[in-house]
């Protein structure tokens, strides 16, 4: 009896970590763009949804899951580049608080536009099946989708860590994050770094959406929901902290899974928002 409940706890924990890693990716997409450019990208969830829909479409043509996923991520990355070069150029013309507000409004408009397009193209929601078999470790059953999500997201985090710590480009990006004037003096163009980071965030969002669709249905209807989740993770993590976003994703994933299992699904949703509000009240200076 005791071992059964322990097994169940372990299973819930694995579910929580799985959900947490996806949340962390979503939050990261918001965090790096806000940290670097002061734009709170409210269309990020729609990017994720578009990635899922494209992957499903491509799967019908290529019948290879990895290839479809890669192509979908590339497509959404391209979309990110177009948005950065067109819309965000206007936003970056303004400064300070006005830029933040303009960023919110413009990306909100973009989310509405893309959402509308998605509804026209493919109105329903989809989930991708990974085809990885479930395994049993010490009596605890781990779903194949969980294994795939954990492996892919950890690999992505490792890659991002390497990029931001070890490569010149990554370091240059962090320089802008810490001190924009200093970065300019070192010959780094903040605008170019912003483009790079926005495109990066679009591809992270695409991967996050596809991983999310391994366990849930994703489509036009879920786009804004994903944005809000991303926003919460980013806030709890301190909005401009990359490590914070990852930690926040994991914590929130665990909170959501356990509250959902023991209290109820809607309380779990409220718990997520409550966590965001508490984080805001405790550490406002980090967010501003």
């Amino acid at each position, binding site marked *: 009896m005791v071992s059964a409940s322990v097994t169940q706890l372990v299973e819930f924990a694995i579910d929580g970590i799985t959900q947490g890693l996806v949340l962390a990716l979503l939050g990261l997409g918001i965090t790096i763009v806000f940290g670097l450019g002061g734009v709170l990208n409210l269309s990020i969830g729609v990017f994720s949804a578009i990635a899922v829909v494209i992957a499903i479409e491509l799967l019908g043509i290529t019948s290879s899951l990895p290839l479809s996923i890669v192509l979908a991520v590339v497509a959404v990355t391209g979309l990110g580049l177009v948005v950065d070069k067109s819309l965000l150029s206007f936003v970056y013309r303004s400064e300070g608080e006005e830029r933040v507000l303009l960023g919110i409004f413009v990306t909100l408009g973009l989310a509405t*536009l893309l*959402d509308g397009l998605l509804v026209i193209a493919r109105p329903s929601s989809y989930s991708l099946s990974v085809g990885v078999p479930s395994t049993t470790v010490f009596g605890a059953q781990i779903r194949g989708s969980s294994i795939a999500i954990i492996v892919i997201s950890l690999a992505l985090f490792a890659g991002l860590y390497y990029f931001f710590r070890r490569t010149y480009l990554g370091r240059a990006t962090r320089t802008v994050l810490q001190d924009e004037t200093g970065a300019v003096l070192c010959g780094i163009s903040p605008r170019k770094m912003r483009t790079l980071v926005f495109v990066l965030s679009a591809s992270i969002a695409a991967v996050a959406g596809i991983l999310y669709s391994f366990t849930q249905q994703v489509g036009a209807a879920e786009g804004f929901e994903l944005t809000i989740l991303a926003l919460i993770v980013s806030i709890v993590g301190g909005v401009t902290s990359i490590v914070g976003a990852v930690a926040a994703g994991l914590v929130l994933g665990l909170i959501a899974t356990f509250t959902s299992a023991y209290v109820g699904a*809607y309380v779990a949703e409220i718990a997520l928002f409550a966590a965001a509000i508490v984080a805001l009240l405790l550490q406002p200076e980090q967010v501003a």
Partner: protein
Amino acid sequence: MIHALLTRVGGTDWETIRLPLVLGLLALVPPVVFREGATYVSRLIILAAIFATLATALNIVFGHTDQLFLFVGALTGIGAYTTALSAEALGVSPWATLLIGALLTGVIGALVCYVAARLQFTVILIAILTLALQFAVIEFFVGARDITGGSTGLIFSGLGFESLQEGFGIHEHVILYYLVLALLGATFVFYEWLRDSTYGLAFDAIRQDEVAAESIGVDVVRYKVLAGFTSAFIIGLVGPLYAQLEGFVIPGLFEFQVIDVLVLIILIVGGMRTLLGPLVGAGLVVWIDEGLASTGEWRTVIFGALLIFLFLYFRQGVVPFADRILNDRFRTRERIATWRES
């Protein structure tokens, strides 16, 4: 055009007659426009008036004290649910519980502003805080089935005058329109008074430079809380009227995408910190939205594109824009007049 004309022809001061004139014109809408059987049009007009009131409320708290409320939908919902549920629980008419809902939302607005002002939140922080609240509240409306009836909600129709409807054969929309108009008018009068009062002056001082305002003795926290209470109170009053129009109280009515997005667009397109901006904006947005209905599924896409365009190029709003053009023209005329005289 009217502005210039009135000042030129009658020599009347536009500022003083504009409010009675606009409200008088709005009062003429039902006999002129409403038709028996055409409830579709009358519903849209009432909806525009409701959104104009919400936008005016947001104008006070966001336009004048820089506190961006992104939970107007949640506040509207709290007002509606509280009024409906407490009327049911107490066994009285919703008329009696209207103020309970409004007071509760007012207190929530005040509390949020108090916490935010105390912790010295920037506009972006309040925006995120209230956005999180918005979604938590909607989640509660959907989830707490025992209290709110879940996503199927409650039927609501208590804010009518049945004796008037039956006795004189007046359509319920006509009555509801005048109710909403009374609230909109009261809000307008209050807003006009507020701007010229010490409060308005304090709000301006706070918005321009908080530290400087504090240093000359303006109690920043108090004024911000007052602005938050006032706006939330008005929004709480709108809630039950909105529910009366729709005939029920369901979570879907109060979602971020349904209320907040529209109210923000209305305020910004109409013009922040103007009296008539919210009214012009509401009329325009409801009209555009209706016009787009013929485009079918492309409606959302075009609306989104329009949003981006308006925010990028029309941020000062229609009313300030029109005002500027008219003023320029007016000054040209003035110059011609003086040139002729000489």
